[in-house]
């Protein structure tokens, strides 16, 4: 939590805290209804375990009870009689895979116009929209991603706008509602976008921005309003009850409320940005308005500024090999992820932005690892797995809850058929909060969306 005295004329943590409670997360609308069902205490034995903290344990065990990891490495001395024991001989075990950039649900399958709900491309600043209100929980992509070991993901609005709206972090559990998937207490993200997309969309509309300098002016104008809004609300909240009766209560504005949440440090910035020079401009912008950029997404040129990203504590959520589809993606190289990972205190993340890529983030990480090793960087699987687990959790602000196999964290776990850094590896079993949500050998543990139910019944499969 960032304190107000750094940015406004009100001082003190108490004010900041009360303000955050009343403005940024006002009454927590659309609350999560997700509750993990109970499960038997589970002991996985004889596995090669990548902990997500940088360690690799051979012939190791993982024990979880009531949705939480109890021990990693050695088996517990005593087990209750109801314990499920899974001999994972030959298998590899990793934390659940996390994708920080997905449009599942907002650009679902089938990709018909009626489902195109990811870009509120009507104005360059739409911080007031929330991606969760577009999520179609019946997107078959969720189940496909589960079969690839995805246990949590952030669903983001698209990149048409300077401020695209709030993202939401979901557990990858089948549910009739998105509230039933919503990761409890995960911070919100705010999608912002640099470069070609906003200037193309609004340049064509003739309304602007139509240039990169127009983009920056648009961000600055919005942050100026947000700062005033935040200060006005904070000032009101600092009044005594008596004074409040006399004062005019400031009006609520959804757009500015989200931006104020960023200024308060409650909402994490996820910034779509390709070019190195633009990312550095954005870091200056963040300094001007005293907020933090959490993660640059796509960052095809992030390797050019890997030290600066690490120094500023910013994650880079990147592709293994995409390039060339537009001018700002022209300098993509396959060593990007490994180079961003190289500095101390770096935060390299492999993201998908794709309903295909999210099904095999392990392979995307494998490609990036291999390219790093090819040029002498000596990246072991136990390090590379962080790109799709603990570093991803850090990007989403949930690393104290999931993303690594540590005592007390959520039992979000994948059992792989072998070394997951291979095209032949498959996620055989996937656990979310200790509950087995997917089993490759058991059709009763393979979720099917309502949409796919009863399709092609005449075809013998």
């Amino acid at each position: 939590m960032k304190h107000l005295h750094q940015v406004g004329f009100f001082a003190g943590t108490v004010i900041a805290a009360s303000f955050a409670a009343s403005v940024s997360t006002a009454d927590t609308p659309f609350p999560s209804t997700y509750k993990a069902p109970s499960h038997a205490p589970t002991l996985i034995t004889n596995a090669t375990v990548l902990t997500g903290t940088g360690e690799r344990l051979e012939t190791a065990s993982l024990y979880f009870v009531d949705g939480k990891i109890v021990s990693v490495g050695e088996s517990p001395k005593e087990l209750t009689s109801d314990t499920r024991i899974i001999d994972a001989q030959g298998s590899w075990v990793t934390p659940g895979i996390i994708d920080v950039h997905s449009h599942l649900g907002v650009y679902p399958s089938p990709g018909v116009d009626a489902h195109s709900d990811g870009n509120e491309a009507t104005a360059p600043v739409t911080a007031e929209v929330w991606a969760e209100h577009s999520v179609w929980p019946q997107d078959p992509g969720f189940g496909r991603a589960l079969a690839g070991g995805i246990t949590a993901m952030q669903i983001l609005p698209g990149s048409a706008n300077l401020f695209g709206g709030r993202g939401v972090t979901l557990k990858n559990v089948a549910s009739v509602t998105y509230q039933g998937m919503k990761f409890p207490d995960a911070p919100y993200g705010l999608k912002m976008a640099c470069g070609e997309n906003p200037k193309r969309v609004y340049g064509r509309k003739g309304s602007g921005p139509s240039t990169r300098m127009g983009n920056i002016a648009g961000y600055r104008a919005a942050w100026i309003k947000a700062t005033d809004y935040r200060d006005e609300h904070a000032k009101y909240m600092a009044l005594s009850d008596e004074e409040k009766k006399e004062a005019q209560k400031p009006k609520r504005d959804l757009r500015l409320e989200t931006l104020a949440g960023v200024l308060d440090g409650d909402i994490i910035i996820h910034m779509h940005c390709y070019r190195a020079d633009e990312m550095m401009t954005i870091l200056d912008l963040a300094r001007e308005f005293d907020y933090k950029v959490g993660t640059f997404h796509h960052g095809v040129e992030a390797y050019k500024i890997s030290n600066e990203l690490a120094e500023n504590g910013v994650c880079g959520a990147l592709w293994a090999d995409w390039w060339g589809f537009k001018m700002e993606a022209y300098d993509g190289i396959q060593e990007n992820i490994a180079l961003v990972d190289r500095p101390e205190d770096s935060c390299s993340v492999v993201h998908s932005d794709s309903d295909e890529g999210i099904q095999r983030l392990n392979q995307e990480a494998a490609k990036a690892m291999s390219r790093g090793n090819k040029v002498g960087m000596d990246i072991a699987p136990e390090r590379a797995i962080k790109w799709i687990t603990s570093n991803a959790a850090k990007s989403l602000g949930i690393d104290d809850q999931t993303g690594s196999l540590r005592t007390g964290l959520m039992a979000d776990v994948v059992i792989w058929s072998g070394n997951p850094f291979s095209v032949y590896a498959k996620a055989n079993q996937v656990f979310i909060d200790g509950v087995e949500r997917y089993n490759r050998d058991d059709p009763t543990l393979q979720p099917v969306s309502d949409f796919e139910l009863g399709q092609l019944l005449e075809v013998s499969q």
Partner: protein
Amino acid sequence: MKKMTVLLALAAGLQGINASADSLRINNATIMTMGSMGTLEAADILIEDGEITAIGSDLSEDADRVIDANGAIITPAMFAGATTTGLVEVNAVRESVDSSVSETPLNKLHVEFDVRRAYSPLSSLHAITRTEGFGYTLLAATGGQYSIAGVGSLVDFDGGFDSFSGDDTIFIDVDGYASRKVGGSRAAHWMLLEGAMADLDGRASEQEYLTQAGRDVLKRLKSDGVFVFAANRAADIKQVIGFADEHDINAVIVGAREAWMLADELADSDIAVMVNGLDNLPADFDSLGSRLDNAALLSNAGVTVMFTSDETHNARKIRQGAGTAVAYGMDYDLALQAMTTTPAEVFGSRSRALAVGNSADLVVWSGDPLEVTSYATAVVIEGELTSMESRQSKLLERYLPENAGMGRAYINR
């Protein structure tokens, strides 16, 4: 960092575009010939004047250049799928894209639109794709005003301006997405295509579907060319089978997500398919039956299967699709054939197998050629050891050193 020095030194040693040598011998390799010799362990291969002149153990012939492969796998150079390599530099830079024509002055089916007229072998994509182990691609026309996108063919990544190879190939969209281009119903694709065939025979008196140039091209295609139909839905694939039979044409289906439902019919009709091994979502109502074992089901039924990645810049991703097809049940050798020799056979080009007398187009791999962690360590095209430099390798060299000295702009070796 020692390893890096060695690798860079190796790269430097292989430098120079198409490092010329009259003869080249690669020793001690696992040679997957994809031909009658099968796979040979600890084998050598000799290349002279662009041709393979010997394959076997302990070849004794002298060569200008000898490379020890240390047991690495060698395969024929790979097929990059149906791409627009050489027809595009940046997708979103319109003037750099030449793969499609959407508006022409005449309202005709432009069979004579030939993308090879726009082809350049000097795009940055060529080296970026070739250095990943790819020797050729199916140069495709895309889009189009109506159902017909245009004509292309195989092209070799040998740097030539006119390195086209094999049969003339026409690209035709008959799927649901393309129906909006023909008035709203996919049935109109067949209305137009039947019209074109009637026009060719002089039976279309009221409406001329084709230009005279188009008639000439279509006549040639009918006897010697390949018709590539983009279709995913089983019912559309069934229409392709019927059309190909009725007009006695050589058809290939690209996309083919629901082709597994018609595997036996496709095998009987000798219609090959080109699939993306990563497709498994109901992306639209044409693809409800999309599944990862599509390639396996088809090849097990005897259908000739090839791969494509739906990518041009990232065409190298096609290996991941082939590997995934193997992970979901496709025979490994058939998948590797699909990635190397099969497309040349289907599209009428020279044999790509590693055999004496064949052009030497081959790749030395760091590991299993279908594995995502593997990469090409050397690429030989028409007997020449090609440069492993690309615009991307140059960017890497510029940003890999931790100390930039005068600044990155001065790292320009």
